[in-house]
């Protein structure tokens, strides 16, 4: 066993160095997004309600014209574990949207004000219309985008991630992407309708810098009171708030899940402890049995 484990260890070390010998091949030449701090990190992490509310404002005013949120209903905004809008606020908000309903008695579809139980209406009637309005590029739906985007962590870091519970690739990437619009490096030609982004795989993205809706070219906010709660309007703040909101949109039951998880873990620990003691007692009856059997 000792020999075997030594060989095993040697093989693993050799293997790791083999694997690491190759230069880290960044996917499509894009840079890895820097890590941000998030309130929802770790087993006890929760969403920051104020941040989600700010993020929703960014979504609504900057993104919603092109990106849907089709898996979410208005009512989700007032449900526990979310941005914590009141039911009254959600009712008023839903009523600001026009929702298609019908057919009516004349057999025609009609539009009516939204209700909390309605899903967010899609910005375009179908994908083809969305492409046609966006230079042929389809703006993805945002319902699960924070779970649908990631980047390679690489071996052996992803092994450590099991223990550190790092799982914020999606939000880190989204934040980086929002901040990654830059002039292309010298010698790189960016075709019409595309934009250079440091963090986008392949670096050429069809979406124009969305933060231009909030900030002018000098990086100053058009409206210094964009956030009604007094939070300073910086690019990083806007990008992070939106990303956090999208994380909640993708994983609305996260808080419920973690709370349940803590209880489950503690109970399993108790049960394991009891079973271990029980097992020890039962097996202790055998302790010296074979010796006396002779």
């Amino acid at each position, binding site marked *: *066993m000792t*020999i*075997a484990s030594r*060989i*095993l260890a040697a*093989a*693993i070390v050799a*293997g790791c160095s*083999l*694997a690491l*010998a*190759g*230069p880290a*091949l960044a*996917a*499509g030449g894009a840079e890895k997004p820097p890590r941000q701090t998030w309130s929802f990190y770790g*087993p006890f992490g929760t969403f920051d309600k104020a941040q989600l509310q700010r993020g929703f404002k960014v979504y609504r005013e900057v993104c919603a014209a092109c990106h849907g949120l089709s*898996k*979410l209903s208005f009512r*989700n905004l007032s449900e526990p574990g979310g941005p914590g809008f009141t039911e009254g606020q959600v009712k008023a908000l839903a009523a600001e949207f026009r929702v298609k309903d019908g057919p009516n008695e004349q057999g025609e579809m009609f539009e009516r004000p939204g209700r909390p139980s309605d899903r967010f209406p899609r910005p375009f009637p179908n994908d083809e219309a969305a492409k046609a309005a966006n230079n042929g590029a389809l703006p*993805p739906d945002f*319902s*699960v*985008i924070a*779970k*649908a*985007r990631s980047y390679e962590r690489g*071996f052996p870091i992803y092994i450590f*991630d*099991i223990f550190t*519970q790092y*799982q914020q*690739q*999606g939000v880190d990437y989204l934040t980086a992407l929002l901040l990654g619009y830059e002039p292309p490096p010298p010698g790189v030609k960016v075709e019409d309708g595309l934009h250079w982004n440091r963090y986008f*795989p392949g670096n050429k993205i069809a979406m124009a810098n969305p933060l231009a809706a909030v900030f002018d070219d000098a990086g100053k906010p058009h409206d210094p009171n964009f956030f009604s709660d007094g939070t300073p309007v910086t690019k990083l703040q806007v990008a992070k708030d939106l990303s956090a909101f999208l994380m909640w949109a*993708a994983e*609305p*039951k996260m808080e*419920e*899940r*973690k709370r*349940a*998880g*803590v209880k*489950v*873990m503690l109970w*399993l*620990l108790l*049960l*394991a402890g009891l*079973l271990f003691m*029980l*097992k*020890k007692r*039962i*097996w*202790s009856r*055998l302790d010296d049995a*074979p010796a006396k*059997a002779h």
Partner: protein
Amino acid sequence: MGEHHSTYVPKTGIERWVDARLPIVRLMHDSAVSYPVPRNLNYFWTFGGILMLMLVSQIITGIVLVMHYTPHVDFAFQSVEHIMRDVNYGWLMRYAHSNGASMFFVAVYIHMFRGMYYGSYKAPRELLWILGVVIFVLMMATAFMGYVLPWGQMSFWGATVITNLFSAIPIVGESIVTWLWGGYSVDNPTLNRFFALHYLLPFMIFGVVILHVWALHHVGQNNPSGVEVKNYAKDTVPFTPYATVKDLFAMVCFLMVFAWFVFFHPNFLGHADNYIPADPLKTPAHIVPEWYFLPFYGILRAVPDKLGGVLAMFASIALLAFLPWLDTSKVKSGAYRPAFKIFFWVFVVVCLFLGYAGSQPTDKAVLTLGGRVVLDMVGFGQILTIYYFAHFLVILPLLGLFEKPLPLPASIADSVLASTGHGHPAGAHASPEK
């Protein structure tokens, strides 16, 4: 051990009445209470019970998910999100099911490597082992089809790539693939039949598991010493309470690992691209199967020829069934085979690296010397694949002929004594649990 006589004594009149007509209580008593278990089993032997737990867990969460899932290309993705958002505890059911599949494979791989290390496939347990291989193959088919159901990008392209494997078959390959799809591409008919089969196969697994356990209880368990039971009183303990309580403890420990993923890291074992709805017009940049298929995927990719790759992959699984005859050693337990022990661990590492190779882009450099790529992922995979086959076809047959095993203990009881007395080399494996 099959000769072990029933010790069930019906106590009440009703029990006697039932026992005379359908001895089901006797069967349960004989197989789960009085069934003799070698006393020196270590914790690796608890994975059979853990696998049973996982199978039941998967079937229960699966049936629950079916109550809310819609197998249609237009609604499948949406219905999974409906489960995650609206259904009471739907997120728990879905995460328990998706992570449960991974945990099932974690347990089955430990179970299989345990069998390989201790020679549990050797006479008289060949059929027991082969039934296990059948279960493994059914598990892979079930897991593959289950992964298609959420109808994300990885679902769709995984289904496309794997079904296309059959197009490698000469002459009839294309017809078979069309037949599998029920169309000219992976589409709604494919999703529906995969759904039907994904529901069916677990019950077939359950059936084969019954045969597996039956065979096990007929021949009795192998044990870390590899020496068969000679004296029931000295070598074995009754299943209940000894094995029961130990299995339960191990199950709860395993559940903690399971819960860690389900509650705190539910998407770690999945792939982000599967949260993008399936798009038949666009393949993700880098498609990989679920982690538990990676070693076999590594073998598939290592062979430059299409048919060759497919054959190599299926052969690498089929080989397992021939293991009882490929290993020529008379000694069962690796604990008494010094050379085998080394090759075993090398084999484990090779399997891990095959998985790694399967997960990486083919053009990735593995070894560079002076700025030149000496070995890329394909070459690395080829070396590993050759070793994988060599382990079964060359090393194991020859090892049995040339290796000089350590002296075996006279009995299980003796091996227990030896290990409790002083630091026996095989102590870590052969000690009884205290």
